[in-house]
């Protein structure tokens, strides 16, 4: 009897271990509706817009029930579930995050081909998704990572990247905004005389948009694409060197405390330098305005934004267009419903809901609903700058090798003088060489 009691007690103690192990089948809810799992990153735009859009979708599609997960640390929330085989149907999570979930999905061929979304009719409207999207957005490595005609990620919120400055300060000092790099360096000397640095940057990672646009300026769009595909010899070329030299020049004009704060914890202090008139320019995207909305600003502060200065007065100016992606995991249960849902996100109704929170999609006619500062930012391409899209081509993971670290992280060492441009160029070349062999075919 005693033994029985002891055994029973032991079993009771171990029971809780297994309670949470069981999985629940949740294909359909009790009303027989299909449950679509939508996981989105709760970014600066907030999660209300997602709640509104999913509610609108459910109202228009009575047979679908959406289970929305909107989290700031989305990778932590869905990552562990995905490891155990529980996949969301739709994921809105862009590349370039530290946890690298989207990159891992690309590298592991775990995304579903969603090209047919482009031919779907936009719900309740005339015309297909393809007609509604602004041209060029579905032909880059950011949507077609394997360099073919198949789209694995759909473009969502976009924004131009470039140089941000205090327009009020330029008016006050009677300085003109530089249109070429030579004018930029001249201004640098002028500002230096007044104790203002020419440049700062939030973290070295923010040089991505600057570098991409710069490569287009020094070598043209084809050259940029060669760099993105790690082609042989591109980084030893004159054009690449010119771009690196310009960055080194920027580094020499950079506010001296920038490096110390160029990390995830303190980058706002670098952004504050612009607001305090201690530095003139910084590379960033349109989200910086929302990020610094409550920060103290110098008198007469007004956001200014421009594309990169040109190499000379004859050549083109470029601005990198950043956009977030939405995708469907290959192992999702309801791929067709997921694609319908993504197509719905391009309806006028959804576009309006997103735009109210400041999230702008690359659809025709979006410029008409822009307000305030956004009008200035999104008009950058109307006033002469050319758009650069895409990014590095997808590769299989190469252990210990990261282009982001080599190409952008090293800039901290260029600013602090710990590395030379020659060393930097050499490291980029080596990284590019080892990634070339790992390119996705």
């Amino acid at each position, binding site marked *: 009897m005693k033994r029985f009691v002891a055994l029973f007690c032991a079993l009771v103690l171990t029971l809780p*271990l297994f309670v949470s192990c069981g999985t629940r089948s949740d294909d359909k809810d009790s009303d027989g509706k299909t449950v679509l799992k939508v996981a989105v990153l709760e970014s600066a735009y907030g999660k209300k817009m997602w709640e509104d859009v999913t509610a609108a979708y459910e109202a228009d599609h009575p047979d679908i029930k959406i289970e929305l997960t909107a989290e700031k640390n989305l990778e932590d929330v869905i990552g562990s579930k995905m490891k155990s085989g529980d996949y969301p149907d739709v994921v809105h999570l862009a590349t370039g995050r530290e946890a690298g979930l989207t990159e891992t999905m690309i590298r592991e061929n775990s995304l579903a081909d969603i090209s047919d979304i482009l031919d779907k009719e936009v719900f309740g409207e005339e015309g297909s998704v393809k007609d509604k999207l602004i041209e060029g957005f579905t032909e880059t490595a950011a949507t077609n990572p394997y360099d073919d005609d198949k789209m694995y990620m759909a473009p969502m919120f976009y924004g131009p990247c470039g140089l941000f400055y205090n327009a009020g300060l330029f008016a006050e000092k009677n300085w003109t905004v530089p249109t070429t790099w030579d004018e930029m360096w001249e201004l640098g000397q002028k500002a230096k005389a007044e104790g203002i640095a020419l440049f700062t940057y939030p973290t070295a990672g923010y040089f991505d948009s600057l570098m991409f646009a710069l490569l287009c300026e020094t070598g043209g769009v084809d050259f940029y694409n060669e760099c993105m595909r790690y082609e042989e010899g591109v980084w030893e070329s004159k054009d690449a060197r010119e771009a690196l030299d310009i960055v080194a020049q920027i580094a020499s004009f950079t506010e001296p*405390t920038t490096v110390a704060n160029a990390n995830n914890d303190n980058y706002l202090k670098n952004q504050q330098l612009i607001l305090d008139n201690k530095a003139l320019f910084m590379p960033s995207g349109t989200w910086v305005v929302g990020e610094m909305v409550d920060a103290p600003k110098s008198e007469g502060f007004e956001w200014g934004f421009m594309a990169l200065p040109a190499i000379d007065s004859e050549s083109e100016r470029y601005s990198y267009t950043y956009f977030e992606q939405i995708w469907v995991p290959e192992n999702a249960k309801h791929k067709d419903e997921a694609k319908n849902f993504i197509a719905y996100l391009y309806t006028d109704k959804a576009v309006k809901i997103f735009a109210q929170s400041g999230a702008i999609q690359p659809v025709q006619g979006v410029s008409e609903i822009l307000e305030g500062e956004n009008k200035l930012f999104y008009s950058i391409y109307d006033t002469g700058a050319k758009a650069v899209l895409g990014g590095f081509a997808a590769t299989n993971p190469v252990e210990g090798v990261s282009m982001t670290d080599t190409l952008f992280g090293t800039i901290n060492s260029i600013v602090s003088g710990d590395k030379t441009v020659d060393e930097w160029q050499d490291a980029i070349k080596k990284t590019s060489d080892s990634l070339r062999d790992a390119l996705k075919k």
Partner: protein
Amino acid sequence: MRKHKGRRAFLAVCTIPALILFGVFMLYPTLNIFIISMYKWGGYSQHREFVGLDNFVKLFSDAKFWQSFQNTVLLIVIVTIVTMTMALLTAAILTREKLRFKGFFRVVFYIPNILSAVVIAAIFSAVYDPSRGLLNTLLSLFTGGHAGQVLWLGDQKVVIYSIAIAMIWQAVGYYMVMYTASMSSVPESMYEAASLEGAGRVRQFFSITIPLIWTNIRTTLTFFIISSINISFLLVRAMTSGGPDGSTEVFLSYMYKQAYTNSSYGYGMAIGVLVFLFSFALSGIINLVTRRESVDL
């Protein structure tokens, strides 16, 4: 005989829950790490490719890994020596000397230990701030104005020591309390006898206090070294994200970067295996070199 058997069975049954927990949460994950370290795998998909010891071979020629290794070892050495010395000294002063506000000092020294790593990182980020931080403002009092601004978190030659200082500040109090506890159990009569023999305070410290609390020092030393590996990761992540340009990368921050950001989960786990073996070996060595004949009272 029957009773004896029943008792054994009873004991076995009682240990089962603990064994299961230990197996599920300790043994299984650890074994799993060893297994995954032999695969090329991104962490999410179903395709894993067995690569044997390939990940380890790559690791040995990975300069960034060695940089993180060096940084970790440097931190362990500096932080351990300084923390242990300071903890022992402050503990000795607080137990042996007639000080006012003893209790107050004990509490103040202990406070950093109850703060989370994020709070500590925020405090030190403010202290190290190049233009408005406590340290540079203090320095400017001596140098007069802005001459020679030190970038505590920006200068690649200084930044690892800045992390070390934060780690020391965080740990001293805890170990001080541990040592105070064991020092107060050393009988007062010993010190009295020693002073009658003419031994000064320093002599008493080295000849009585240290030998009598040696077992405690040994245990805490092993414990401390292992926990340094974890704490350094937390602080580095929150203070510098491994930067500038990898100069504060430590074992675990590099492991995270490889396993997640670089989609090389298998490679990350290979780093994990090395960290595991390294800490195991280090504890073994520490145990060996600190072995003394125990002094019983």
